[in-house]
């Protein structure tokens, strides 16, 4: 009897670890409308390939809650197979030793990811200081430096799409004189930083942006150019309305849609609000890049694949990585999400005008050195440095701090957190 019991227990253990097909547990926060629909495409694909998908959605706070859950799982020694992590944070997790031995790299090599992605974006997804094996897969590219403008409002005031920051200011003054709120803005730290980086790239240029916000050079941060960037931020602040502090970004987008405000500077997820309101790009609204010298601020959503000793899950990771970078998912997902595919060889025929602009601009920017990572969205810096920059930017924007003081505070904040 006792022997039988032992045998039974032994059987129970072996049977769970025997190979039963690819399996994956995905921690994500894609639970709202379009994102959930796009994710379903991936799940169906995964099931059609014989895989078993264990969903672990954690909603709330734009991924904050998911990050808390993720850390708890990692500390407990049981990370999920894959989760939404992006930018330099991928490297931070790698340095904690929870990613190696990079199960998806063989797939990345056999599928030729190096040829499918822009080299800069490919590097983000390689562990061991951006040059080793692939350990994460990109699903999209968001562009940050967009200006969303209400066409009817612009037309009525004789304004065309501005191509320099001086023109932006002139247009805003015209709108102000006409009694329209020129600049729809939500005064939250990340939104302030989003506008700031578009201004920094536009006024300072692409090399200035890289020196300051990617390489964090002190002389650059304290420079005259940074002062000019803060000057422009102060001007933009003057074009916001009183209700701006604390406002959510989509409420600000709503103001542009309704014609209460002239324009908003926001990443391409803002397009979803226009689409939901039945507005057509070029007819009802303009989507144009903020003035810059062929710059392009990118923000890529990625999935990282953690180490696991379960062979089923390793298979699952490989399958998911393959499907995620597949043409079908990249197209469908981005049609829903408003961004563009991370793979550059996906046909853009079904995409709208804004996405097509984004797709052609990223190629120009990539060739001309204007493709730069967004720091406000965690692509250029890890979370610590991102917050260090953001704190100063939002403090300047919401106070009467002088531009010179702000530039110095920015450099000090960076040095403090080095």
């Amino acid at each position, binding site marked *: 009897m006792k022997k039988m019991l032992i045998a039974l227990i032994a059987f129970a253990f072996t049977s769970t670890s025997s190979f039963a097909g690819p399996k994956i547990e995905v921690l994500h926060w894609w639970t709202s409308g379009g994102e959930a629909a796009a994710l379903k495409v991936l799940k169906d694909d995964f099931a059609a390939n014989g895989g078993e998908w264990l969903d672990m959605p954690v909603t709330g706070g734009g991924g*904050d809650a998911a*990050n*808390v859950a993720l*850390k708890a799982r*990692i*500390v407990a020694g049981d990370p999920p197979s894959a989760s939404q992590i992006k930018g330099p*944070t991928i490297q*931070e*997790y790698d340095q*904690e030793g*929870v990613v190696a031995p990079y199960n998806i790299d063989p797939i990345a090599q056999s599928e030729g990811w190096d040829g499918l992605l822009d080299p800069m974006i490919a590097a983000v997804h390689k562990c061991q200081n951006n040059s080793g094996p692939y350990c994460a897969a990109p699903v999209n590219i968001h562009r940050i430096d967009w200006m969303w403008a209400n066409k009817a409002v612009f037309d009525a005031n004789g304004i065309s799409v501005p191509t320099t920051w001086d023109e932006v200011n002139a247009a805003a003054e015209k709108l102000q004189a006409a009694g329209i709120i020129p600049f729809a803005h939500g*005064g*939250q*730290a990340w939104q302030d930083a989003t506008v700031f980086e578009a201004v920094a790239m536009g006024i300072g240029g692409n090399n200035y942006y890289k020196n300051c916000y990617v390489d964090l050079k002190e002389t650059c941060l304290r420079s005259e150019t940074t002062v000019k960037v803060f000057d422009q931020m102060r001007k933009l602040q003057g074009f916001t*309305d*009183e*209700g*701006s*502090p*604390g406002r959510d970004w989509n409420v600000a987008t709503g103001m542009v849609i309704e014609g209460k405000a002239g324009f908003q500077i926001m990443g391409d997820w803002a397009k979803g609000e226009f689409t939901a309101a039945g507005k057509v790009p070029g007819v009802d609204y303009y989507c144009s890049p903020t003035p810059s010298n062929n710059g392009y601020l990118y923000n890529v959503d990625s999935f990282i694949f953690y180490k696991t000793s379960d062979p089923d899950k390793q298979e699952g990771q490989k399958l998911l990585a393959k499907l995620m970078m597949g043409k079908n998912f990249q197209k469908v997902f981005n049609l829903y999400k408003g961004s563009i595919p991370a793979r550059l060889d996906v046909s853009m025929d079904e995409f709208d005008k804004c996405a097509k602009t984004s797709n052609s601009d990223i190629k120009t920017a990539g060739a001309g050195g204007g493709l730069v990572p967004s720091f406000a969205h965690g692509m250029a810096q*890890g*979370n*610590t440095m*991102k*917050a*260090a920059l953001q*704190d100063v930017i*939002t*403090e*300047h*924007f*919401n*106070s009467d701090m002088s531009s010179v003081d702000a530039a110095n505070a920015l450099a000090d904040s960076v040095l*403090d957190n080095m």
Partner: protein
Amino acid sequence: MLKWLEKNLPKIVMAPAVGLIGWFVYGFVLWTLYISFTNSKILPKYELWGVGQYVKLWGSRKWLIAVDNLLIFTVLFLIFCVVIGIILAIFLDQKIRAEGVLRTIYLYPMALSFIVTGTAWKWILNPTLGIQKMFIDWGFENFTFDWLVNREMAIYTIVIAGVWQSAGFVMALFLAGLRSVEDEIVKAAKIDGANLFTVYWKILLPMMRPVFFTSFVILVHISIKSYDLIVALTQGGPGISTTMPALYMTQTAFHKSQVGLSAASAMMMFMAVAAVIIPYLYSELRRENAR
């Protein structure tokens, strides 16, 4: 056996609760203390690093702003809650009609979560949606009430919302206290010629000392831990002007990936709460022993 069980049953019944609290409360307090002495970044690390996180914490502008805000908030929140609470309690103590209804109305905000309070006040105080707009629409075109979006004044809007929520609770505490005083004392005072004001000021309120103490402890620890109200009302803004320690702690741990620094700030908050609670417990226990 049965005798042993009988003797030890209370201990056995209490053991799981004590064990769970011991581990999940005190165990994690100690864990946090340990982490605050490490250089933990995105995930906890266990090599000791010294007091660097505390040095960094007290050198951080944002933390100093948070501490300033906490002092302003705590003092004002305490004073206004207690003063308004006492006034309401005295009014309700006058054996008025419909007292039950009024008591419920004043106590009701307590039933709401701070998130609801914060969101409602965010709309009321927003200059383009709330009070200011209402007055402007009524024709007072120069009326301004923009505290919520004013860096200097935003912290006071948090006091307003906090007091609105908690004053009713303080009222209930004082009302219960006033009702527990025997009628004879008041009658005796009146026979001696004391008017109503003197009765309250000289006799009843001094008797409320334990209630003052209870309110003080409850309100101070609410204010040190206040997080949800700020998240709903200002999210620490405009800029970083309304950051409070609890908000600083969560932001540092989960947005800035600085677990060690966050643990250090958590320990500072823990000490602040302990500084309030321990004297209270001490005096309570002493009184019990004296009996």
